[in-house]
């Protein structure tokens, strides 16, 4: 069978030719951006607090956890909220209030902020309690597009994306399965 190469491919030219905001997730992953490092948000977050951005990214990973995806894919998925919040005060409030409520719940049961709760199970319990909250609902819906509608992510799951431009699969393994028991 023709398998899909899932390795992250980063061209050095990406770093040389593009500004930080345009760096593809794969390139940023190679550069080592992680959710926990709030200082990395300090330089890019303009409207929302760096702590808020870090919390959104942690929530994103906890809602749709994929161990094969580096933090940076989640960081990219929520990265757009900062610019949106700059133009939409209601959204900014929804996000900041939602994060504050989540942190308050985390402080109550775990004596720390949501981002710092060490076990995923404990964070999931906090999220489950807030499943109906506007912030959870918004993230849950938006991430279906902002996380999964990303060709870099598709590759990681062995999904090959557009195909007509490559001549379809007629000569690229549409019927190459070779492990089925003989009927």
């Amino acid at each position, binding site marked *: 069978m023709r398998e899909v190469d899932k390795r992250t491919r980063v061209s050095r030219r990406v770093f040389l030719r593009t500004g930080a905001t345009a760096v593809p997730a794969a390139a940023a992953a190679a550069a080592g951006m992680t959710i926990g490092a709030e200082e990395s948000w300090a330089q890019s977050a303009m409207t929302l607090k760096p702590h808020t951005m870090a919390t959104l990214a942690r929530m994103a990973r906890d809602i749709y956890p994929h161990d094969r995806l580096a933090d940076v894919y989640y960081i990219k998925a929520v990265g757009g909220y900062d610019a949106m919040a700059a133009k939409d005060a209601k959204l900014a409030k929804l996000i900041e209030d939602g994060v504050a409520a989540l942190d308050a719940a985390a402080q109550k049961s775990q004596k720390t902020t949501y981002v710092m709760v060490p076990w995923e199970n404990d964070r999931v319990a906090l999220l489950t309690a807030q499943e109906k909250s506007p912030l959870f609902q918004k993230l849950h819906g938006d991430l279906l597009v902002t996380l999964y509608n990303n060709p870099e992510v598709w590759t990681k*799951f062995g999904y090959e994306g557009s195909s007509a431009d490559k001549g*379809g699969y007629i000569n690229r393994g549409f019927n190459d399965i070779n492990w089925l028991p003989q009927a």
Partner: protein
Amino acid sequence: MAKFDLTDDSVVCIIGSGAGGGTLGNELAQKGIKVVILEAGGRHEIADFINDEWASFTQLAWADARTTSGTWRVAHDFPNLPAWIVKAVGGTTTHWAGASLRFQDYEFRARTTYGQVAGANLLDWPITLADMEPWYAKAEDKMGTTGTNGIPRLPGNNNYKVLEAGAKKLGYKEVHTGNMSINSQPRHERGACQQIGFCFQGCKSGAKWSTLYTEIPAGEATGNLEVRPNSMVVHIEHDASGKVAGVVYVDADGKTQRQKARLVAVAGNSLESPRLLLNSASGKFPNGLANSSGQVGRNYMRHLTGSVYGVFDKPVHMYRGTTMAGIVRDEAPNNPKRGFVGGYELETLSLGLPFMAAFLNPGGWGRSLTSALDDYENMAGLWIVGEDMPQETNRVTLDPKVKDKNGMPVASVHYDDHPNDLAMRAHAYRQGSAIYEAVGAVRTFPTPPYPSTHNLGTNRMSANPRDGVVNKWGQTHDIKNLFVSDGSQFTSGAACNPTLTIVALAIRQADTIAGMMGRKDI
């Protein structure tokens, strides 16, 4: 290309350009009849189609507001998207998978065959398979259906091979790559399938039949057909005698226009067609046009549907090649011993990663969902197409509050699953899972129905005007120059993808209309 005057009252005006409207328009044009097709959506040609699920959805899907209610899970998961159908020239024939199955004889006699089913509003069609056979043959030839007319079936892809191996292990006998209106070899100036795998997003090779690049240009070439895209019909008008006289629509510039017509054929699908008839209520017809029976909008059917995805310990790459790549037909016959009447087909289906994330378990999150997506490349998938029971209370009504941008009430879709539907779906989930487990699936997912693609029955055909909206020709019982030409005519749904029957009915209806017009009956 023809251009007809708004005041030309000799034209046939067809509302919608999909399987019903597009086919009817071409057939009439070929017979020398002048036709104006008003299409609510834009015209996107093959080159415009996009191999990207969300981008294509944005391009093609009917995203105007609709509302929902009832016990069906779609109302919970997608409250404003009851149907996944298309707003574009070609209608849902741009999006359909291509499966082209004839009804069985007994499926035209649902009431007689299934008997009295509590809560169901079953009725026999006023036509038989024998009546339809010549029209099915014409439709299959027109559409280039594989397995008919000497056209070879398509080669099976990986997803099909998994289905076939599992089904045969279970002892199923009728397992093949289907009767598909997708060219397996070049035919009618269209090429062969390139196994692209984005059938739902508009076929980039044109191998799949769609009225967009078959019927419509063929009709236009006669000089008798004009297609007006971006033309949303809001109202059908009638004269003092009660005959329809024309339609009011909003054009691409937002201007209200009035097209006069000798005859109007409604083909906007089973949600928009009844909505339009209801929105066309007048002093003479206070309950909407063609609604003396009170049946307009009722008996909404959508096939019970549901999917099963199986995860294996090795790759399948189900997304490669035709989306609906094969079928198991052994569960299609009516066998009440299973605990339900009617039957169902199992047909392969695949979604890309983005739509799999959205549809595998809508509302789901956490590792239960994501561990399934982690195995995306090891998944095989099938879709259930089962006959659902027509119920009077499953219906399209006008939403009392929500209006579209033209100020017209939107369609509100109410659907409750019938106990027969639930029993059939449970059976199909079990059998679908068993197929995959027979060849080593380590996990299976009974996936809930997607927004409906097979929307049927809301202007149903009946022998007696009391029981339905149209007669056996699709002519409304109440108004002789008003016809219905889409799946809303269906008296019952059968265990078949509906498009072939819609096309066959449209070819037959064109013949009838031409005869009636020739005889000056209408």
